[in-house]
Structure formats: structure tokens, C-alpha cells
């Protein structure tokens, strides 16, 4: 199996690891081989398979933007054997990266539109590069509404970036939690209810949502009530993925392979899936 085998990860070094929430860590990773690093181009919405050698591999959305100075970033929630090992890595340790895989958010098609971004918990991760890419080219887009929900205040993801999001032009950041605590002064409500309350208009708008299945189900219903059509709602599916190459047939939902045909789909596409995710 020569080096070009798609099953062999690129070696990478963990540069920094910052704790975003009690169980989510932001890993900043640098590919060791300079040519690979230069050639590793990706778009918001694509994912990679991270290897914690000795445990295994798991798919994670790439949450940084390409050409950012400090390499690839992944938000990893500690939830299984691989994620636990990733949480135990120290800066300087070696890990494996395979990718980039999958399709991406077609942000260029959303030029001139109002963008509504709704994320729940770790669901915020794949949406971060979308937000930062929109802020990078702010004039291409109209209003940007970000609804970021979590179980508790310390579970809100990407808090260090909230100030820049709030200060960005024509951008509105709405935070909400299921359960507040003594010094939480913000909203205490479920994401779908916040969305209904803010009632964003569907004309010339695109809604990008990602979060736990229960949140997605109710948020979708709310969006439809507001008049959003299925081709205006985009999400990224989280399914069991092993190879990322369309071979191991673990990630297929209906006739679609999430790792190659997705993970980004419009609701219209998903509704035509034979099998509902």
C-alpha cells in the first residue's frame, strides 16, 4: 500500500488545544508534511477523519477557514473512545488527519441573501467557518442572524468569538440556553422557540441549521411555519462514517453516501431521500 493509499492518514501535530466548554475542545492542528499542508484545500462544511492512534478514527467538521495562519481547527466533543483520546492529547503530540471529505456549503450561491444560522450545542461547530467566511466577505450578503443555543451557559460554543460576531455589520447574535445559572442574564428558552419569536422573514433568505436531531425537528417545523421552503433550509448530517471514501457503506442514508454526496444537504434533497435520517 504505497503512500498514496487513501486509508493512511497524514501525520499532523497538535499545536494548541483550548477548552471551549467543559466537554468541547478546540484542537488546532498542523500537517507535518509541508507539501500536503500547502495542498490541503477545503471549503466550509467539509470534514476530515481525525486519528487518535491506538483508539481509532472519527469524522469532525473542519471549523477553521482555509489560508488561516494557524492551521486546521476541529471542535471535538468528548463523547466516545476516540474523542476521549483526542481530549487527552498534549500540544506537540502526533495525530492523523484524512481528508478533506464531503461537499460544502455553497456560500457563493447565497450572495445577496439574508442568512439565518441556527446551531445547537456542538452543532455550532460546522457553522463557525460559514459565519467567519460570511464576515470575511460581509458585503456579499445581506442580514446575518445567528441563533446559538446550548444546554447551559458554559456549554455555549465559540464564546471567545461572540464579541467579533456581535460587532460585525448587519449581524445579530442571539444566545439562548435550556437552563440558566445565577449570573446568566440572557435568554432561557429552546432554540426553536427563540427562532419563532424572532420570526426571520423567508424572502430572499437561507437558513443553515445544525444540532441534535430533536432541535432540528422542531426548528424545521418552525421555519416551515414562517414560510421557508425546503430548498431554503440547509443542514449537515451527522451519521456513522468510517472510511470517508464511499467504500465501507456505513454512512449511507437511503441511496446517498453522506461522506461523498453530503454531509451538506438542503431539506428539499433530504425529503427526497428514500430513508429519512
Amino acid at each position, binding site marked *: 500500500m504505497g503512500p*498514496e493509499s*487513501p*486509508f*493512511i492518514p497524514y501525520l499532523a501535530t497538535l499545536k494548541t488545544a483550548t477548552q471551549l466548554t467543559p466537554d468541547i475542545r478546540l484542537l488546532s492542528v498542523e500537517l507535518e508534511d509541508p507539501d500536503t499542508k500547502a495542498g490541503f484545500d477545503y471549503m466550509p462544511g467539509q470534514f476530515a477523519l481525525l486519528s487518535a492512534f*491506538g483508539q*481509532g*478514527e472519527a469524522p469532525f467538521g473542519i471549523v477553521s477557514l482555509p489560508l488561516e495562519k494557524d492551521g486546521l481547527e476541529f471542535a471535538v466533543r468528548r463523547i466516545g473512545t476516540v474523542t476521549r483520546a483526542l481530549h487527552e492529547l498534549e500540544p506537540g503530540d502526533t495525530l492523523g488527519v484524512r481528508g478533506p471529505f464531503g461537499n460544502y456549503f455553497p456560500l457563493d450561491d447565497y450572495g445577496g441573501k439574508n442568512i439565518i444560522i441556527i446551531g445547537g450545542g456542538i452543532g455550532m461547530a460546522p457553522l463557525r467557518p460559514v459565519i467567519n467566511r460570511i464576515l470575511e466577505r460581509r458585503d456579499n450578503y445581506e442580514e446575518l442572524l445567528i441563533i446559538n443555543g446550548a444546554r447551559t451557559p458554559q456549554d455555549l460554543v465559540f464564546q471567545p468569538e461572540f464579541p467579533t460576531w456581535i460587532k460585525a455589520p448587519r449581524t445579530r447574535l442571539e444566545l439562548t440556553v435550556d437552563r440558566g445559572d445565577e449570573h446568566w442574564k440572557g435568554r432561557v428558552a429552546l432554540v426553536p422557540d427563540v427562532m419563532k419569536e424572532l420570526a426571520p422573514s423567508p424572502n430572499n433568505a437561507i437558513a443553515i441549521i445544525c444540532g441534535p436531531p430533536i432541535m432540528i425537528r422542531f426548528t424545521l417545523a418552525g421555519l416551515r411555519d414562517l414560510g421557508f421552503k425546503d430548498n431554503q433550509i440547509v443542514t449537515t448530517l451527522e451519521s456513522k462514517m*468510517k472510511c470517508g471514501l464511499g467504500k465501507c457503506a*456505513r454512512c449511507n442514508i*437511503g441511496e446517498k453516501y453522506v461522506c461523498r454526496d453530503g454531509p451538506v444537504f438542503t431539506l428539499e434533497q433530504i425529503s427526497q431521500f428514500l430513508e429519512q435520517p
Partner: protein
Amino acid sequence: MNLFFSKDDLSRWLDSLLLERTVVAPVRVQELTMFQPISKVGEIAFDYDYTTLSPKGWFLPPSETLFSVQRDDGQVELVPTLVERDAILFGLHPCDARGIALMDKPFLQEPGDALYRDRRSRTALIGLACRQVRPECFCTSMGSAPDDPSDVDILLTEVEDGYIVQVVTEKGKALLPQGLVEYKGEVPTPPKLQVVPVKEVISTIKELFNDPYWEQLADRCLHCNICAYVCPTCYCFDMRDYSDKGKVERVRSWESCQSSGFSLTAGGYDPRTTKGERLRQRFYHKFLYFPEQFQDVACVGCGRCVRDCPVNIDIREVISDLKQLMEAKSGS
């Protein structure tokens, strides 16, 4: 142009191949026949009618190490498993050869699996045409035939005192000794087989996705992995790292859509939880998803799942059930 091998010619030839190649052939193991590397030609069960497991295991083994992780003074190196030796896969029936050709599609599709590709290119397939068939065989309905040479390098057909040698590819030709006598005799006609109406089902199966048929069929299913593991065209796999015995290696193993953890995500979400959904996935992958992705049906009609399913979920019966359901549905 057909050549001819006497039984002794064949043994001598295989002996010569054994010198510098691994020869994998059907071998009797207690009451079973299994494809195994042989050390002497005498071990080969030339007259076998079926093997419990298909020869896919030579190209996608039940378990294999994809690469091992070597750490010396902090520097990590990934050492891939390499194919050491050329090999001969001897005595596989045409249906199994077609199974391998079908498995080539996902594994060689860009970006191709290098280990699989190396094994495929360094293994010559010497097929053995079927002289008798079993009641559960239906290869002709699946585009193969008891004497179909299309997916092997050489096809042997047993006749009175030897074998007809049909050279199919250059790779096969290069293996053969010089001066083989031409076979002028009459080529035996292959046995007839039942017809299974799979073509009609392929085009209509989509409509039956939410039909209660699947839950009823799955009532008796045990959700073991037999049908997937004996099947020549089931290639789903799982990958995990092992760090016991002082080495860290990434292992790839067979996995089946019937097992409980197949579509379970780490967060606990599983799109397929009921028995019917799980069993349906097996037939939809074979008769809809694979055809949509690779324009071919992922079944070769070898009858292994029919034979080994503990509760007789018979793929031919499922196909005819689906046909009747469609006819009832469209009122024809």
C-alpha cells in the same frame, strides 16, 4: 482457442506455480470446503460443489492490519501493510469471480484502496466451471453462468480425463507453460438453472421502501452476520485501532448491516433501530443503492445466504415477493 490439461499436467503446473507464489484453493476442512493457502497440490478439493465462505476473503480478509504505528523517540511513522508475494486464486466458480469483479467497483473507484488494488493485480484468478449446480443456485439470473469466463484469467472446465483450458487474459496466458495441446473435443453444455425475476424488482424496489413487508420478513430474522459474511458481494467493513501486544495498528474487519452497532453514532443516534429497517438495508443496498452507484446488481446468485440463513430468509423468495407486491400495488 481452447487448450487442454490432463489431470497430471494440471498438478505439475500447479506444483511449479507453488514454488514462488501463494496458491489459494478450495480445501476440505471437516465437513466444509474453505478457500485456504495450500502447501501441496494434493490438498485441493477439485470436485467441490460450494465453499461456505466466498473467496472475497483473499482480497478483503475477515481482519487485516492496514498500517502499524511505529514511535521511536517521539517521531511517529505509519508503516503500511504491503503485498509480499504474487498469488494464484485457484478453483473459484464463475459466480465467485463475478463477486470479486463487483467488489472491485467500490474498492478501485478513485481514490482506490491501494492494498486491495495490489492484491488484485498480483493475484491471478483460475476459475473452475460448474459441472453440476445446486437447487439454490441462480447465477444466470444475475448475469453470470456456470461456464462464464468473463471475470477470471483462465477458466478450466473438467472433462473426461482432464480439463479444457480457456485462456481469458494476458495475465493468464503468461502463467501457462508452452506447448499445451489444443482441445478439439466437445465443450460440455452447462447445466440449466431456475430463473429469478430480479430485473423487474430492481426498477420497482424504490416504491416498496415503506411497505410493511420488511417488518414482517424481519420478524424471524436473528440479525446475525452470516448472510453478509458468506456473501461474495457484501464488503462493508469496520476500522479500529489496536494497541495491545505492544504494537499500535489500524485493523480493518468485516462488518454487517445486521449488527447492532452498524449505524450507531457515538452520540447514541441511530437511523436504523427496528428489525425491519435493518434487514431492508441489506436488500436495498444490493438491489438499489449499489446499482445506482455502480450500475450493477450486488448479488451473483451463489445461494450461500439461502443455504446458511438459520431462519431461511431466502433472497429468491424475497425477490418474487417484491415482484408480487409491485404487481398488487400497480393492480396489474
